[in-house]
């Protein structure tokens, strides 16, 4: 289980309805179903991931977020989750609006581009960072909208999105010591619990 997913579980009430945008192979939805009796739906575009998620007995709809989420009615879910996909969608700001139209609350996780390693890489080499966690080159990366913790919070303020909680995880299993104090510098992954 990815660290960010383990973290956000506690924000999801047992028995609630959850929509997982870009649910992958459904590992997280299965956990929520089995441990929190959540009624979940996932959307995904990866063929192998969809089959794997169906085999887990989950409800998965093949749908591309970039083509809109208008088929999901207003406030039809308790929580809409988007883990590690914000940076890969065409219009992250619109997706955030859609998340909070469809769900009462949203949970977003993304790789923080303000992390000191990224800054160091760019600062010393003058090249776009490539690492174990972001293994792509600038021209072939699916991650087309990188942002930092500060960028995300500025967008939330501009959109009147309320941040209920912020959490961070580092690159290791240990909770990064400085990340809660200086998240923009030390959070590898930023996690936000949001609402309107």
């Amino acid at each position, binding site marked *: 289980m990815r660290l960010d997913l383990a973290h956000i579980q506690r924000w999801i009430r047992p028995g609630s309805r959850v929509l997982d945008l870009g649910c992958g192979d459904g590992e997280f939805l299965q956990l929520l179903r089995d441990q929190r009796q959540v009624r979940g739906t996932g959307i995904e575009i990866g063929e192998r991931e969809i*089959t794997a998620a169906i085999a887990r007995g989950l409800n998965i709809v093949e*749908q591309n977020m970039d083509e809109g989420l208008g088929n999901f009615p207003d406030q039809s879910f308790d929580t809409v989750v988007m883990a590690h996909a914000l940076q890969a969608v065409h219009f992250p700001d619109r997706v955030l609006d859609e998340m909070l139209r469809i769900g009462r609350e949203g949970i977003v996780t993304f790789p923080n581009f303000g992390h000191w390693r990224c800054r160091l890489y760019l600062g010393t080499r003058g090249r776009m960072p490539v690492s174990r966690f972001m293994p792509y080159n600038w021209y072939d990366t699916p991650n087309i909208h990188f942002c930092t913790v500060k960028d995300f919070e500025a967008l939330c303020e501009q959109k009147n999105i309320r941040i209920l909680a912020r959490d961070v995880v580092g690159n290791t299993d240990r909770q990064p010591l400085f990340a809660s104090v200086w998240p923009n510098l030390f959070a590898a992954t930023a996690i936000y619990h949001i609402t309107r």
Partner: protein
Amino acid sequence: MAPAVNQHSVGIVEPRVARFTEPLALACGRDLATHELVFETYGELNEQRSNAVLICHALSGNHHAAGYHSPEDKKAGWWNECIGPGKPIDTNRFYVVSLNNIGGCHGSTGPTSINPQTGKPWGPDFPPLRARDWVNSQARLADYLGIDCWAAVVGGSLGGMQAMRWSLEYPERVRHCIVIAAAMKLSAQNLAFNEVARQAILSDPAFSEGRYQEQGTLPVQGLALARMVGHITYLSDHAMANKFGRDLRSGSLDQGNDENVEFQVQSYLRYQGSQFSGSFDANTYILMTRALDYFDLAREYNNDPVEAFGHAKCSYLVVSFSTDWRFSPARSREIVNALIAADRPVTYAEIEADEGHDAFLLPIPRYMDVFSAYMQRVGATN
């Protein structure tokens, strides 16, 4: 080795007949006093009677969905790719029931049967049918077999429409509804193609206003033409280009050559047409295309599919194929979106396939994977 002897085949199967003597009230207001259904079953019904899967056939289908009728039989049932040991509808796990619908021409009561009131074939006097009539007669077959609740009702194309109708008419008797390459209603373009097909039959002099059986004639030309039109709509432009292109079967397009030219696609279509017209009944074809035309899932629910699906209690799998232009992925997404809005559990996959509408009959790897994965879930809750 005969094709029937194969670890992934249900092997040799034998059709059975169920006779129903209680009148069946039809949507048109008439009754069918008695009727027979011919059907096949594959696999074993478990002790709890909870592993039964109903197969609903499409326009020209029948009860013979899998296996072979004899060791010499070269042609397997129409959905043999999907039904059998280790196949998506795994007969090691499920008890599969496949019937010929009433109005059909493969053994169930239909236009070619004798009308007990006149002692002559029904012909064009056979009552017009709706998908719900098929569903009601299938429910009687379930009673006959001692099946209270289907693990899944499954269908492609017109079969998918019956599956959806099942989920609304008998919500307590369906746990999973599998709808493949279908739609909630036909488009104007679909209606238009069906009308061309019917006109082809009606305008054949041998049709004799539908009384060809009594007259001792057969409208083979009209029926073949109807099938040719239909067949074009089952294939994609791409599939036809791949299979035939502009290849010639005979003749030459060289200058100075005046012999007749025949393209491969012409001869293929004519072959399909003549094969079909030798084995299918024209009145059944008219009846089936009309049932298809009249189908509108939400008509009785204020034309609101969300309200319609609000009456269902099952989970759904919806599958479409990228190059299917008869029932395009957009039609399937309408089903999915109505299910989402009605808060029904739904899984949807849009399969990349070059074969058009026909893809639902073919063993396309991703289709098989998705179908198998979903059927695992169906089986897990038996």
